[in-house]
């Protein structure tokens, strides 16, 4: 079959590996000083990062405003659950995800009027708008600077019974199921015809347009999907902590998810999870290391610079290039004038 040549293989290796890892993670993590809650947090960021990877690693759009959607999804979910408007956690999560996606469409429509540098600046600026809106005009619903506390532990009616997710480990597996679903969907997306077009846009947007693809529409579509990922992750964060923090909207949050995605490896889908793991783990490990304390950000910042400068594919990218497990494409060569002239 000739289409094999374009990576259209139904391999389940990556999915299987990720599933096994997700099951085992809370059991192996304590061996290196981790714990279940940290594992959950890493998965939430990893899910957030998959969206980031879809737009950046697969389509080449560097958004500095993803926190807007993370926060939106989180606060919608948190509002619905904490006020008791909804009791079913899944419905609240879905509502948050959808609202975040709608915001993504709106912001995407505005920001995608420009590409490259402009796009990054605009997303950053619109991220700030959401931050200000959350803090003042919408404070009645979002709690402003205080955030929204008091989310109940998840309840999932299955028809015949209602699942109560109470222990830390149960919460972990609840988030792990969401993460796996997100990962599986993302894998399908990047291997779909649409995914092929996205990679073409990453490689050479002008040519992708010239051969007949409506590039702005594809960008908007994937931007919306990424916003949905961010929204779902935000919703999970609130559910997991029982509290939705206002800093989910902050510029720093947008920056961190970029750093995690790059450190882990953009264009791999699993990279953001690796990056989030490293970031969260080092952050805690270094913080408690005597004499390093407040310098953890410098160390991670320098690591990031080195990776951007020399190892553009990040950690997961490097590993997967080696073993070919998550491979969908090879290392992007620096775009030269030839590609963009």
């Amino acid at each position, binding site marked *: 079959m000739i289409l094999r040549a374009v990576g259209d293989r139904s391999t389940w290796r990556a999915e299987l590996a990720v599933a096994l890892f997700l099951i085992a993670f809370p059991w192996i993590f304590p061996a290196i000083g981790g714990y279940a809650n940290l594992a959950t947090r890493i998965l939430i960021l990893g899910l957030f990062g998959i969206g980031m990877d879809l737009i950046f690693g697969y389509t080449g759009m560097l958004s500095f405003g993803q926190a807007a959607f993370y926060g939106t999804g989180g606060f919608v979910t948190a509002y619905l659950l904490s006020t008791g408007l909804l009791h079913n956690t899944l419905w609240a999560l879905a509502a948050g995800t959808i609202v975040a996606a709608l915001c993504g469409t709106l912001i995407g429509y505005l920001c995608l*009027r420009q590409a490259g540098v402009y796009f990054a600046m605009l997303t950053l600026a619109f991220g*700030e708008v959401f931050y200000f809106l959350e803090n003042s005009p919408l404070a009645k619903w979002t709690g402003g600077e205080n955030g929204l506390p008091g989310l109940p532990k998840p309840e999932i009616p299955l028809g015949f019974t209602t699942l109560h997710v109470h222990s830390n480990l149960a919460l972990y597996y609840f988030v792990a199921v969401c993460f796996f679903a997100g990962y599986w969907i993302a894998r399908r997306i990047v291997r779909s015809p649409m995914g092929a077009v996205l990679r073409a846009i990453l490689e050479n947007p002008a040519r992708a347009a010239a051969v007949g693809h409506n590039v702005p529409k594809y960008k908007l579509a994937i931007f919306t999907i990424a916003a949905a990922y961010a929204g779902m992750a935000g919703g999970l964060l609130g559910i997991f902590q029982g509290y939705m923090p206002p800093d989910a909207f902050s510029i720093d949050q947008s920056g961190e998810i970029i750093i995690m995605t790059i450190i882990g490896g953009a264009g791999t889908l699993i990279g953001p999870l690796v990056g989030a793991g490293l970031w969260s783990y080092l952050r805690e490990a270094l913080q408690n290391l005597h004499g390093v304390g407040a310098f953890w950000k410098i160390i991670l*910042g320098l690591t990031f610079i080195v990776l951007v400068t020399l190892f553009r594919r990040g950690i997961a990218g490097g590993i997967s290039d080696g073993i070919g497990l998550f491979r969908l494409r090879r290392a992007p060569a620096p775009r030269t004038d030839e590609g963009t002239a």
Partner: protein
Amino acid sequence: MNWHLLIAQLLNGLALGSILALVALGLTITFGLLGLVNFAHGVFFMVGAYAGLVTFERTNSFALALLAGALVVLALGIVVERVLIRLFYRRPPEDQILVTFGLAIVIVEIVRAIFGGKTQLFPMPPWGMGATNLGFLVYPNYRLQVIVIAAITLTAIYLVLYKTRLGLIVRAGIDDSLIVNILGIDVTKTLLAVFVIGAMVAGFSGVIDAPIVAVDPDMGASVLVESFVVVVIGGLGSFTGSIAGGIIAGEIISITTIWAPDYAQVMLYLAMALVLILRPQGLFGTEGRL
């Protein structure tokens, strides 16, 4: 309607705007001439303010503080450009953004490690103290002087870039590095010069702004975001655009504050969205210059 207040806010908008214009100009120079967007631009602003603060505390001279702000950032700019940025001129804009973004984090945290996170008082220079009674309001002298300093600086930069041989080489070097090379001019030095000019302007603005806003390691972040808004409104890469954008932004903030202070920031971004919809390349930007 209180007309005195409106006039006062209009004047204040001009003062706010002139600093924004100055910061945005540095950003726009590096972009317009190097095609590089510097997410560490706000950090240069902050480092300039700290350098100025240290100098002012030692020498009690604001002129020396200004000089120090510009020179320290010049030195920082040279190091950063030689070690890191020069590797990125030919890489995609996303990589440039990422590396300058990483750089910003590292520098902010280093400054925090050295000076602590405390907000520090930057004393008002003696000549800037006091206020002028303009008849209808009392307005701080220093803010009036800032308008003048900003105007002079903007003019000076304009003259350097557009009326001198250096400026000519710089602009030619960007347009066609090969030809300038053939003419025997070292392009890498030109690139360095542009980057450093952009950085210096930021450092200089940091010192000017410091007596107004106090100095802390995070002061660069908000300035960076606002100057992004300014260049989006004015048109990235346009000299006139950054000045006009700065003043427009300043006026929007000031005038909104009269009626709805808590919406001042939101209004600013709303204006930006409006420009994007009606004129995506910015008020003074040229189409296709991305």
